[in-house]
C-alpha cells in the first residue's frame, strides 16, 4: 500500500518535470518579447492574446518538420547526442530544493520537502551533471560529419572546460561559508537578517563568488555574449547545424532548462532560496520563483545588450582573469572562515 508521502513524491517528480518543460516554453516567449522590447519592436502578437500561444505554435511547427540526417553522419551518435543534452538538463534539477517543507493543505501529515531527491552532496551532483552535459554538444558536432558542426563542438568543449574550473571554485567558496554540501542545509543557513534589514544571503559575504558564478553560468549554458558554439556569422548554427525537427527542439529545450537550473542553483546558493520577508516558510516557494524569474530576466537582458566576444578574448578572460579571481576568492573565503568561524 503506497503511503500518501510516496504518492506525493511521485507527483512532485512529475510536477517538476512538467514545470521545467513549460518554463522552457515560457522562456522562449519571454526571450522574444524582451528582445522585442529592447529593440523597440512589438514581438510575437498574432497567436493568442498578446502572442501568448506563440511557443505552442512553435512546438507544433517543430513536430511536423521532417527529421533530417546527413548521409555521412554517424547514425547512432547523431541520435544519441540530443538525448544526452536533454537528459542532463532535466537530471540536474532533481537535487535542487525549491521550497521549504509543506503539508499541501494538510494532505500529507509528515510534511513534504519541495525537492525531488535530498542528496547530501547535492552541490557536487549539480556540478557533475553540468560537466556531463558537454558530451551532448561535442557528440552532436562530431557525429554530424560537417565542418561547421565539428568546429562548434570543439569550441564548446574548450569553452566548457575553461569555465568549469571557475564555476567549481565559485561553488567551493559557498560551501566553505555554508559548511555543507547539501543545498537544503545551505539554504537554511541563509535564513534571518543582519541588523534587522540586511538579509542573511551568501551574496552579501560572497559578492565576487556570485559574479564569477553568474559569468561562468552564462558560459556553461552557451548564452550570449559567450555563445560561441553557435556563433551564427561564423558557424551557421554551430553544433546543431545539421539537426532538424524534434532533435533540434531537444537542444533548444536543453538550453532553456539549463538556464532555469543555473538560475535555481544561484538562488539556492547566493540569494537565500525560499527565505524572504513577509512570507512564511510553507509558501516560501513564491520567493523562490520570484528570484529565479529575476535572474532569468537578467540573462535575457544580457543576451540582447552585450555583443558577442571574440573567441580568443573569451579564452583569455576565462583563464587569465576569471580563474585567478576565483582562486583568490576561495583563498580569502577560507581564511575568513578560519578566522571568524562560519
Amino acid at each position, binding site marked *: 500500500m503506497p503511503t500518501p508521502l510516496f504518492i506525493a513524491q511521485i507527483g512532485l517528480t512529475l510536477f517538476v518535470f512538467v514545470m521545467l518543460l513549460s518554463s522552457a516554453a515560457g522562456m522562449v516567449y519571454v526571450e522574444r518579447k524582451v528582445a522585442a522590447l529592447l529593440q523597440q519592436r512589438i514581438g510575437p502578437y498574432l497567436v493568442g492574446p498578446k502572442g501568448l500561444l506563440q511557443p505552442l505554435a512553435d512546438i507544433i511547427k517543430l513536430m511536423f518538420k521532417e527529421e533530417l540526417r546527413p548521409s555521412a553522419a554517424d547514425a547512432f551518435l547523431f541520435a544519441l547526442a540530443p538525448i544526452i543534452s536533454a537528459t542532463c538538463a532535466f537530471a540536474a534539477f532533481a537535487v535542487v530544493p525549491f521550497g521549504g517543507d509543506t503539508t499541501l493543505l494538510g494532505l500529507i501529515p509528515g510534511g513534504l520537502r519541495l525537492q525531488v531527491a535530498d542528496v547530501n552532496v547535492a552541490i557536487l551532483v549539480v556540478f557533475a551533471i553540468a560537466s*556531463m552535459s558537454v558530451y551532448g554538444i561535442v557528440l552532436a558536432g562530431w557525429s554530424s560529419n560537417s565542418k561547421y558542426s565539428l568546429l562548434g563542438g570543439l569550441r564548446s568543449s574548450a569553452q566548457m572546460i575553461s569555465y568549469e574550473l571557475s564555476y567549481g571554485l565559485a561553488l567551493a567558496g559557498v560551501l566553505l561559508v555554508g559548511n555543507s554540501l547539501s543545498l537544503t542545509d545551505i539554504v537554511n543557513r541563509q535564513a534571518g537578517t543582519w541588523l534587522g534589514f540586511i538579509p542573511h544571503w551568501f551574496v552579501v559575504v560572497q559578492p565576487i563568488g556570485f559574479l564569477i558564478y553568474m559569468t561562468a553560468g552564462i558560459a556553461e549554458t552557451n548564452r550570449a555574449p559567450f555563445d560561441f558554439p553557435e556563433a551564427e556569422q561564423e558557424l551557421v548554427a554551430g553544433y546543431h547545424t545539421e539537426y532538424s525537427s524534434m532533435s533540434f527542439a531537444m537542444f533548444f529545450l536543453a538550453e532553456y532548462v539549463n538556464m532555469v537550473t543555473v538560475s535555481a542553483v544561484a538562488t539556492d546558493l547566493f540569494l537565500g532560496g525560499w527565505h524572504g520577508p513577509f512570507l512564511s516558510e510553507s509558501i516560501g516557494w513564491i520567493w523562490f520563483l520570484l528570484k529565479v524569474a529575476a535572474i532569468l530576466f537578467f540573462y535575457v537582458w544580457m543576451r540582447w545588450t552585450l555583443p558577442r566576444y571574440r573567441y580568443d578574448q573569451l579564452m583569455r578572460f576565462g583563464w587569465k582573469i576569471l580563474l585567478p579571481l576565483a582562486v583568490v576568492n576561495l583563498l580569502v573565503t577560507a581564511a575568513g572562515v578560519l578566522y571568524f568561524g562560519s
Partner: protein
Amino acid sequence: MTPFYLFAAIAVGASLLVIAQRNPVYSVLLLIASFGALSGLYVLLDAPFVAVIQIIVYAGAIMVLFLFVVMLLNAPQEETLPDLKAHSGRRTDVVRYAALLALALVAELVWALTREGGSPGFGAPAVSSVALLGRSLFTDYGFQFEVTSVLILVAMVGAVVLARRDER
C-alpha cells in the same frame, strides 16, 4: 546484491568493449560508461562523495579532454592489421612491453586480493563524511597526498616543455 552485479557487469563489459572495437570516439564513450558504473559501485559502498568526484574528475573533465584530442586529430579508425604487419618490428616490441605490464598487473591483483584486510583503509563512516575524509587525507595520508601533487606538477611542466620545443 543485484545492483552490484549490474554495475560490475556494465563496468567490465564496457571496459572490454573499449579495447575490442576500433573507433576511438566509441572507445572514449564506452570508457565513460565504465566510469559511470564504477561511480554506481561507490554509491553502493555508501561513499556518495567519492562517487560524484569520480564523475566530475574522470567522466566530466579528463574524458572531455580525451574526446577533444580524438576529435581534433580526427582519427577515424585505428590502424588496421595490414598497417601493423608493415611495421612488424615495432609491433613485437609493443607486444613484449604490453605482456610485461599485464603480468605485473595480474601479480599485483593476486597479491592485493589474497592479502586480507591488512591495509589501513578508511572505515565505512569515514568515506561517507566529507570532513573526515578530508582530515585523514591531510593528516594520516599527508605525505602521499603531497607527493601525488608534485607528480602531477612534474607531468604538467613536462607537457609544457614538450609543447614549447619549437621556440628554442
